[in-house]
């Protein structure tokens, strides 16, 4: 089987793009995804600000595999698989902490923070051929970082992380350069899971089409909170195919941003500080780049499963497939170091984050409802077997078109077919077609 054409139909001549819903329900598809995508692509693990001191660690599960993300005693950031090389017990059983040694609770084998096996109780019981040095903690084939963001790759022949990130680097820089003293992950994680395929969460994270309907109550809230929506933002920007399956929607900020776009939502008392930050950005980066950093929203997808939304706050969201119909999410808030704990600036940022985002926000719960209802709708297969993602193929894409979602699916099918990443789409995808007129009346039903 080939994924392209059989599960993803990209008909540029007619301007039609369809995805077969078995892509969201089939265990075989998930197995193929694990082997062809998740075992070959760079996968986000964490940010080094989460483990600032030597010996700091956090536990993570990255595409089903348990890892320890840590800073060793010498200060080097590492990733170890979180399983004892003796007989497999979970080595690190606390969510986070600081240690010099990981001692397995099962038979007390002990490993230092570099992963070296240093203690095997009853060492005289082992023969000469028993090689302790070969029994250190295992690490993923590759671990590399960009701006403190650490990724792993199970394929030792993979391209470098920087090459892989490609066109996303420009956007990551626009996020990270907002900080004067560097960005950090704020303590506190949104951990939840959704009864939907992981790709529905990817689609939703880069979908500008659903906001007026799914988030009507949020938009009403913004209107009523005195801020009003920035009218100039409506319909600005566009989805962009960044190559390598990565994609971004960049658009004029529709509402307030902690760095740095003041709206009444933040309160009059915050205005001087935010406007000073705005001015400082222009000083550091010039008018054009400073304005872009301060006054645009960015919804960035790093293929396959990392989303960075630089909107009313900055969120890093990791998407973890669990089963064909279940996805686990972890989301963090990024903040500049200079927004100190306990400061009004940090609280403003976090409150702004929570208003829209997260399981208790005014918007994300309705996304979850939409995703789960799609997944439930897929039970109508095979009678209803296809989803349509054709919006905007015959024009220069608008932000509420679906180019960025097609970008993901094209890369998805191509990588699954072992064909590498497809060529970037630039310009109009289906220039030969024009907008359809109203659909003709339905034909007679067979009696």
């Amino acid at each position, binding site marked *: 089987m080939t994924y392209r054409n059989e599960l993803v139909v990209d008909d540029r001549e007619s301007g039609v793009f369809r995805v077969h819903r078995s892509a969201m329900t089939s265990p075989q598809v998930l197995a193929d995804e694990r082997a062809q995508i998740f075992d070959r692509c760079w996968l986000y693990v964490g940010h080094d600000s989460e483990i600032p001191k030597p010996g700091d660690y956090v536990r993570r599960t990255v595409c089903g595999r348990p890892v320890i993300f840590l800073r060793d005693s010498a200060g080097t950031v590492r990733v170890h698989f979180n399983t004892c090389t003796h007989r497999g017990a979970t080595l690190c059983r606390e969510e986070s902490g600081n240690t010099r040694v990981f001692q397995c609770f099962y038979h007390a084998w002990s490993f230092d923070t570099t992963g070296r096996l240093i203690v095997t109780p009853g060492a005289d019981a082992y023969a000469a051929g028993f090689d302790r040095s070969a029994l250190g903690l295992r690490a993923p084939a590759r671990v590399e970082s960009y701006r403190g963001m650490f990724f792993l790759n199970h394929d030792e022949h993979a391209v470098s992380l920087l090459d892989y990130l490609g066109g996303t680097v420009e956007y990551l820089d626009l996020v990270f350069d907002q900080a004067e003293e560097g960005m950090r992950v704020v303590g506190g994680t949104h951990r*939840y899971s959704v009864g939907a395929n992981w790709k529905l969460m990817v689609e939703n994270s880069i979908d500008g089409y659903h906001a007026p309907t799914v988030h009507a109550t949020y938009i009403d809230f913004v209107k009523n909170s005195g801020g009003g929506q920035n009218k100039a933002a409506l319909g600005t920007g566009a989805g962009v195919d960044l190559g390598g399956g990565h994609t971004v929607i960049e658009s004029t900020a529709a509402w307030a941003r902690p760095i740095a776009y003041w709206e009444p939502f933040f309160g009059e008392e915050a205005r001087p500080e935010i406007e000073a930050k705005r001015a400082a950005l222009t000083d550091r980066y010039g008018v054009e780049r400073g304005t872009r950093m301060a006054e645009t929203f960015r919804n960035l997808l790093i293929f396959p499963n990392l989303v960075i939304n630089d909107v009313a706050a900055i969120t890093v969201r990791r998407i973890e497939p669990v089963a064909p119909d279940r996805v686990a999410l972890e989301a963090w808030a990024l903040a500049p170091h200079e927004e100190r704990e306990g400061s009004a600036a940090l609280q403003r940022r976090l409150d702004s984050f929570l208003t829209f985002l*997260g*399981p208790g926000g005014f918007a994300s719960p309705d996304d979850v409802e939409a995703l789960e209802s799609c997944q439930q709708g897929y039970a109508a297969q095979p009678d209803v077997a296809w989803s349509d993602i054709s919006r905007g193929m015959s024009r220069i894409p608008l932000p509420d078109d679906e180019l960025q979602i097609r970008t993901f699916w094209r890369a998805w099918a191509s990588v699954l077919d072992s064909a590498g990443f497809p060529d970037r789409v630039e310009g109009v995808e289906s220039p030969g077609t024009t907008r359809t007129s109203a659909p003709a009346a339905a034909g007679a039903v067979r009696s």
Partner: protein
Amino acid sequence: MSADLATDTALRSRVEDFLYAEAALLDEWRLDDWLQLLSEDARYEVPSTDRPDGRPDTTLMLISDTRPMINARVTRLNSRKAHREFPWSRTRRIIGNVRVLAVETDGDLQVTANFAVYRTRSGRTHVYAGRYRYRLRPRGEAFQIAFRRAELDQENLDEHGTLSIIL
């Protein structure tokens, strides 16, 4: 807790009655009536599951609502367009282990209680379990809620997916 408060069963009974009445309003989705229980400066917080001790000016919370935000949350939940709660879920709040820990100098009571909030919708029931922390302001025989915070025992919201109700 002072010995006086621990043995002041009359005070505790009044606090219990108040919390039970509040729970009934929430279970019955009488959210506008529930708002009447709150002081003008009320805050409502739910910390993230990995940081039950989290504070809104240091930590990413699940919910950190000022009074205007609580009002907005209720407006949203009363709308037919809050899709996660339209139609409304059924909820059942079980509250116990109510303790009056202290009386502040301004007369506000510090109260804790355990909760199990069952939420049923779309063929599934899940439980939010944890501890409430309240600051109650005496108003005659009744109280006003100046602060309420729900600290969850769950390590994640894998069962729940969201926190779309008022805990």
